[in-house]
C-alpha cells in the first residue's frame, strides 16, 4: 500500500497555510459559539447567585439588630419577697404577674421623663415593650436575689412594632388599622430615641435564644434550634460515617460481584434519589410508632437523617475507593499483605480525602433538610430552654435550624419573616463552614503519587 501511488484526484490542491479554508472557518466559528454559550450560562448562574445572596443579606441582616428600651425597675421587696429571707424557693412563687406592674412603673417613669404620660393609657405603654419583659426581669432576679430592693436598669426588648418602626418596616401612614401600635406611640418612640432611652443594639438573643410564641416575635431566637441541629449532626456523624464507610469498603473490596451485590448497588443508588419526606414518614412509623422513641427528639431526627445520608456517603466512598489505582492493591498483596491490610494500610489512606469530602457534603445536606423533620414533630415552638445536660439534648423535644426557619416563615408578624431570613444567613454560614472544612481536610490528606 505504501509504495502505491495515490490517484491524482485524491490530492488536494496546494493551499497556503495562512489562508483558512471554509471548513476550518466553520469549525472555528462553532467552537466560538460554544464558548460564548458556556460563558453566558456561567454568567446567568452567577447573576442568580448574586441575586440570591444579596436578597438574603438585605432581608436577613436586620434580624441581627434589635431595639431595646432602657427601663429602671424598682425591685420592690414588699412584693417580690414577702417573707424577707431571700429564699430561692419563695422567690420562685412570685410569678411574672407580680413583676409586670413593676416593669410598667419603670416604663411610666421613662415616659414621663420624656414629657409624655397623660395621653397614653397603661395598655398603650404595654405595647411599647415586649410581652417577655416581666419574665426577663424575673429571670435576672432569680439568678441574683441580691438585686431585690434596688432600682436596676434593664435593657427591655421593644415590641416588634416599635422595632419595625426603627428598621423602616412599619410606617406612620400604614398603621391606621393596626391595633398594636398608634401614631401617638410612635411620637413617644421618637422622643425616647432622642433621650437615648431607646436604642438599637446587636441581638444576641436571636443567635442564642429559643423560639418564642406568636405574640413575642422580638424575643425569638435560633439558638436552641441550632443546638437541635448540632445534636442531630452528632447522631448522623457517629452512625452514618462508620456504617457508610464500612459498607462501602465491604462492597467495593471484599464482596463477590454477583446478582445479590448488584441488587444492593442498584438499591443504594436509588435510595439516594428517594424524596426526603419518605424517610420522614419511615422514621415516624419505625422509630416513633414502633420503637416508641420520644417525639420531636433530635435522636430520632438524627436517625432519620442518617438513613437519608447513608446512600450519599456510600456512593462517594465507593467512588473514592474505586479511584485508588489497582496497582497499589497489587503491590500490597504482592508483598504478602492480607486483603484487609492492603485496604487499611494503603487503599483507605489514599481514599480518605474523597471519603471525608463525601461525608461532609452528606452532613451539609442533612443539616439543611426540613421535610423529614416535619413528620417527626421537630418543627415549631417545641423547645423553650436549653437541654439539661449533654444526654438530655438527644431526647428532649427540639427543633432544627431549617425547621425553625420554615416555622418563622409561615407566621403572621413580619418580624418573624425577618428572622426567617436571618436564620437562613446563619444556616448558610454553617454550610459554608462545613464546606470549608471539607476543602481543608481534602488538602491535608491529599497525597500525590
Amino acid at each position: 500500500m505504501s509504495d502505491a501511488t495515490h490517484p491524482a484526484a485524491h490530492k488536494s490542491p496546494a493551499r497556503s497555510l495562512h489562508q483558512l479554508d471554509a471548513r476550518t472557518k466553520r469549525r472555528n466559528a462553532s467552537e466560538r459559539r460554544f464558548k460564548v454559550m458556556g460563558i453566558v450560562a456561567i454568567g446567568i448562574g452567577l447573576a442568580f447567585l448574586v441575586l440570591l445572596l444579596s436578597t438574603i443579606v438585605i432581608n436577613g441582616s436586620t434580624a441581627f439588630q434589635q431595639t431595646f428600651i432602657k427601663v429602671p425597675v424598682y425591685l420592690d421587696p414588699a412584693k417580690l419577697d414577702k417573707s424577707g429571707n431571700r429564699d430561692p424557693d419563695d422567690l420562685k412563687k412570685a410569678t411574672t404577674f407580680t413583676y409586670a406592674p413593676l416593669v410598667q412603673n419603670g416604663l411610666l417613669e421613662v415616659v414621663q421623663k420624656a414629657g409624655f404620660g397623660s395621653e397614653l393609657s397603661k395598655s398603650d405603654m404595654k405595647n411599647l415593650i415586649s410581652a417577655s419583659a416581666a419574665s426577663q426581669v424575673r429571670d435576672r432576679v432569680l439568678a441574683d436575689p441580691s438585686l431585690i430592693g434596688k432600682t436596676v436598669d434593664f435593657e427591655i426588648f421593644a415590641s416588634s412594632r416599635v422595632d419595625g418602626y426603627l428598621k423602616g418596616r412599619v410606617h406612620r401612614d400604614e398603621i391606621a388599622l393596626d391595633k398594636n401600635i398608634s401614631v401617638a406611640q410612635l411620637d413617644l418612640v421618637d422622643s425616647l430615641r432622642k433621650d437615648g432611652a431607646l436604642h438599637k443594639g446587636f441581638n444576641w438573643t436571636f443567635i442564642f435564644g429559643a423560639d418564642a410564641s406568636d405574640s413575642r416575635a422580638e424575643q425569638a431566637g435560633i439558638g436552641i434550634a441550632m443546638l437541635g441541629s448540632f445534636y442531630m449532626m452528632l447522631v448522623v456523624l457517629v452512625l452514618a460515617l462508620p456504617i457508610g464507610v464500612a459498607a462501602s469498603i465491604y462492597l467495593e473490596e471484599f464482596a463477590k460481584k454477583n446478582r445479590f451485590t448488584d441488587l444492593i448497588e442498584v438499591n443504594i443508588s436509588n435510595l439516594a434519589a428517594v424524596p426526603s419526606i419518605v424517610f420522614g414518614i419511615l422514621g415516624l412509623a419505625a422509630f416513633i410508632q414502633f420503637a416508641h422513641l420520644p417525639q420531636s427528639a433530635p435522636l430520632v431526627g438524627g436517625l432519620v437523617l442518617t438513613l437519608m445520608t447513608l446512600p450519599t456517603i456510600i456512593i462517594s466512598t465507593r467512588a473514592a475507593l474505586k479511584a485508588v489505582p489497582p496497582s497499589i492493591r497489587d503491590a500490597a498483596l504482592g508483598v504478602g499483605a492480607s486483603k484487609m491490610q492492603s485496604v487499611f494500610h494503603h487503599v483507605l489512606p489514599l481514599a480518605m480525602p474523597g471519603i471525608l469530602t463525601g461525608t461532609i457534603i452528606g452532613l451539609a445536606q442533612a443539616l439543611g433538610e426540613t421535610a423529614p423533620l416535619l413528620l417527626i414533630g421537630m418543627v415549631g415552638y417545641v423547645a423553650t430552654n436549653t437541654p439539661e445536660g449533654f444526654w438530655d439534648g438527644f431526647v428532649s423535644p427540639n427543633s432544627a435550624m431549617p425547621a425553625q426557619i420554615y416555622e418563622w416563615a409561615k407566621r403572621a408578624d413580619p418580624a418573624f419573616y425577618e428572622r426567617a431570613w436571618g436564620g437562613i444567613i446563619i444556616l448558610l454560614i454553617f454550610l459554608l463552614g462545613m464546606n470549608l472544612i471539607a476543602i481543608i481536610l481534602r488538602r491535608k490528606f491529599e497525597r500525590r503519587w
Partner: protein
Amino acid sequence: MNDMTLTERAVNATDCKITARNVQVYYGETHAIKDVDVDILDKTVTAFIGPSGCGKSTFLRCLNRMNDTIDICRVKGEILLDGEDIYDKRVDPVQLRAKVGMVFQKPNPFPKSIYDNVAYGPKIHGLTRNRAELDEIVEASLRKAALWGEVKDRLQAPGTGLSGGQQQRLCIARAIATSPEVLLMDEPCSALDPIATAQVEELIDELRTNFSVVIVTHSMQQAARVSQKTAFFHLGNLVEYDETDQIFTNPTDPRTESYITGRIG
C-alpha cells in the same frame, strides 16, 4: 545483541523449585491457559516469552495466586512449591506471597517514604524484633537491589519521587525484603528506558544467586540476555520449554521459530 550476555555465574541450578502439572486457567468461559506443564528450577532465571495475550502473565500470576483477586478466574491442575500444592485448601495465599514475591510491569511504590516501602513487608510478616533489625533488612534489600548508593541519604523521601528505573528497583527491593524463595517479575522493564533496563537486568542476574526468578518479557533480547531457561507460550499453550540457548538457536517447534524470527506475534 546476543553478544551482550551477562557474565557467567557458577550457580548450582538443578533443584526443581516449582512444578506445574496440567494447569488450566479459565476467565469465565474463556480457557486462557491450557495444559501447562513446567518445572521451574531453583537459582535460575526462567523467562516466559510469547505474543500479547498468550497467557504468560496469567500463568505467572498463578504462581503466587494473585489471580485469586479476580473473581471470574478459576485455576485447575497442580502447582507445587517445594512439593507442596499451593492451591491446597490449607494454604493461605498471604503466606504463599511472602515466599513468592512479585514485581509488576509498572513501578508501583507505595505513596510512602523509601524506607517504609521496603520495611512494609518485613513489618507485616513480623520478621524483625526491633528497629535496628529492620534498618538492617532495609539496607540489605536496597543494596541487593542496587539502589542503596542512590537513596541512602534520603530514605525518608517519598518513593514516588524517584525516577522510573529507581522506582522499579525500589519495588524489587521491597519484594526481596521479605526474603522470598521465588521472585516473579511481570515485564519489569517495559516502562523503563534502556539504561534503567540494563541496570535491572544486571540486578536480575545477581538475584539468581539467592532466588529462583521467573520473568515475563516481550523482549526476546532480554530473555536471551538474562535467562537460563525459556518457555514460549502461544494462545494459552506452553509450546516449548528448554534451555534459553536451545530456544533461540535451535527451536524444535516451528511456532517458536516463527515467533523468535518475528513472523508471528
